[in-house]
C-alpha cells in the first residue's frame, strides 16, 4: 500500500504551470528582439534552459548509481533510471533547439564544436544506459549493470571533455563563436533567461517526482503480483 498523497503535491505542478506561463510571456512578448539575430534568438532562452536539467540529471545518475552499488537499496536505482530518462529527454531537446537556432545563424545544422561533440558523446552514453536496462536478461541484475555504467559515465566525463577540446583545438573551427557571446546585454534578456531556466528546472523536478513515483508503483505491483501468484 502506498500512503495517500500529501497536499504539498500540488505546489510543484502549480508553480511549474505558473512559471511556464510567465516565461512564455517574457520570451514572446516582454523581451526585445536581438539587434543582430532578430526573432530567431528567442529560441535561445529555451535552448539554454535545457542544459541545467540535463547536467543535474546526469549528475544524479552518477551519485545514485554509486549509492545503489553501495547500499543495494532499490530506491536509488529508481531515481537513477528516472534521472537518466529525463536527462536524455532534456539533452535531446537541447540539441534539437540548438540545431534549429544554428541553421539560420551559423548557416549549418551542426558543427564539430567541442561543446557539441561532448554533448553528443553524453547523449550516446545515456542512450546506451537505458538500452542496457531494457536488454538485461534479469531486471535486478540490469540495475547493477546500469549502475556500473552510470558511475563510469561520470568518472569519464572530465576526460571526454579534455579530449574533445584538445581535438578541436588543433583543427581550425568551421565557425568560431562562443555561445556566451550572444550578447544578452539588455537586462530584460537576462531576466527572461533566468525565468526560463527556473521554469524548466521546476518542470524537471516535477517530472522526476512523477517518474520516481511511477517506478515505485511498478515495483509495488510486481511485488503484489508475485505475492498473489505465490499464494495461488
Amino acid at each position, binding site marked *: 500500500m502506498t500512503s495517500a498523497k500529501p497536499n504539498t503535491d500540488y505546489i510543484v505542478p502549480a508553480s511549474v504551470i505558473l512559471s511556464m506561463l510567465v516565461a512564455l510571456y517574457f520570451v514572446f512578448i516582454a523581451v526585445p528582439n536581438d539587434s543582430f539575430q532578430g526573432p530567431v534568438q528567442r529560441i535561445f532562452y529555451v535552448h539554454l534552459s535545457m542544459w541545467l536539467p540535463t547536467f543535474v540529471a546526469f549528475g544524479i545518475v552518477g551519485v545514485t548509481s554509486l549509492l545503489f*552499488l553501495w547500499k543495494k537499496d532499490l530506491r536509488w536505482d529508481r531515481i537513477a533510471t528516472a534521472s537518466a530518462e529525463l536527462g536524455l529527454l532534456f539533452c535531446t531537446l537541447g540539441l534539437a533547439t540548438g540545431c534549429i537556432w544554428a541553421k539560420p545563424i551559423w548557416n549549418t545544422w551542426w558543427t564539430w564544436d567541442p561543446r557539441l561533440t561532448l554533448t553528443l*558523446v553524453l547523449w*550516446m*552514453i545515456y542512450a*546506451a544506459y537505458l*538500452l*542496457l536496462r531494457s*536488454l*538485461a*536478461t*534479469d531486471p535486478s*541484475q*540490469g540495475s*547493477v*549493470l546500469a*549502475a*556500473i*555504467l552510470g*558511475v*563510469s*559515465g561520470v*568518472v*569519464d566525463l572530465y*576526460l*571526454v571533455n*579534455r*579530449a*574533445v577540446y*584538445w*581535438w578541436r583545438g*588543433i583543427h581550425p573551427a568551421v565557425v568560431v563563436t562562443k555561445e556566451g557571446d550572444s550578447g544578452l546585454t539588455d537586462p530584460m534578456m537576462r531576466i527572461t533567461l533566468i525565468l526560463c531556466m527556473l521554469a524548466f528546472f521546476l518542470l524537471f523536478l516535477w517530472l522526476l517526482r512523477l517518474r520516481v513515483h511511477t517506478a515505485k508503483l511498478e515495483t509495488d505491483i510486481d511485488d503484489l503480483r508475485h505475492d498473489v501468484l505465490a499464494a495461488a
Partner: protein
Amino acid sequence: MIALIWKDLLVELRTGETIASLFLLGVLLLLVLSFAFDPTHPLREQSAPGVLWVAIIFAGTTAINRTLLRERENDCFSALLLAPIDRGSIFLAKVTVNFSLLIVAELFLLPLFIFFFNLPFASTLSRVALVLPLTTLGFAAIGTLFSAVALQTRAREIILPLLMLPLATPLFLAAVETTAALMGGAPVSSVAHWFRLTAAFDVIFLVVGWLAFEYAVVE
C-alpha cells in the same frame, strides 16, 4: 591469478583462434577502409591513422567479446567464480590476456598497414609503437569490464560497442591524434598531454574495473 593468465594464454597458444581471427578481421577492415579512403592519394597519410585505429577498434571489440564468452561454454564461468579468488583478480587476469592478444595481433597488423598505405617502414613502425601499449591497455581494461556487463544481456554482440565506445572517446581521440602527429614527424613532447590523458584513462578504468567487476559477474 598467474594460473588464470597462463590458462587463457595456453588455450590461445594451442588454438591460435583469437589472434588469427583478430588479425584477419583487421586486414579485412584495412581493405574495406581503403575503398573509402583512397590509399594512393597524396593525402593518404592524413587518413591513415584513422583507418588503422578503426580497424583495431572493430577487430578488438569482437575479440574482447570472445574471451569471456569462451568461459560460458561448459559453464566454466561458474567454476571460475567458485574458485577461492578475488573477483578483482579475475578482472586483472582477463585484462592481461586481452592486452597480450591485442598487442600480438597489432604487431602482425602494423607491417601490413604500412605496406598497404605505402608508408616509410622504420619510422612509422617505431613511432606508432609508442602509442600502441598505453592505448591497448586502456582498451583492454574498459573492454573487459563491459564485456562482463554485456555478457548478461540479450544481444550482447551489439551492446558491447554501444556501451564501450562512447566512454572510450578520449582514448581513441588521443590514439588517432598522437599517431597522426607522430607520423607527421612531430616530437614526442608535443603530444605529451595526449599521453597523460591516455595514462589517466588507463588508471581510471583499471581501478573502476577492478572494483566494479565483482558486481558485474554476480550469478
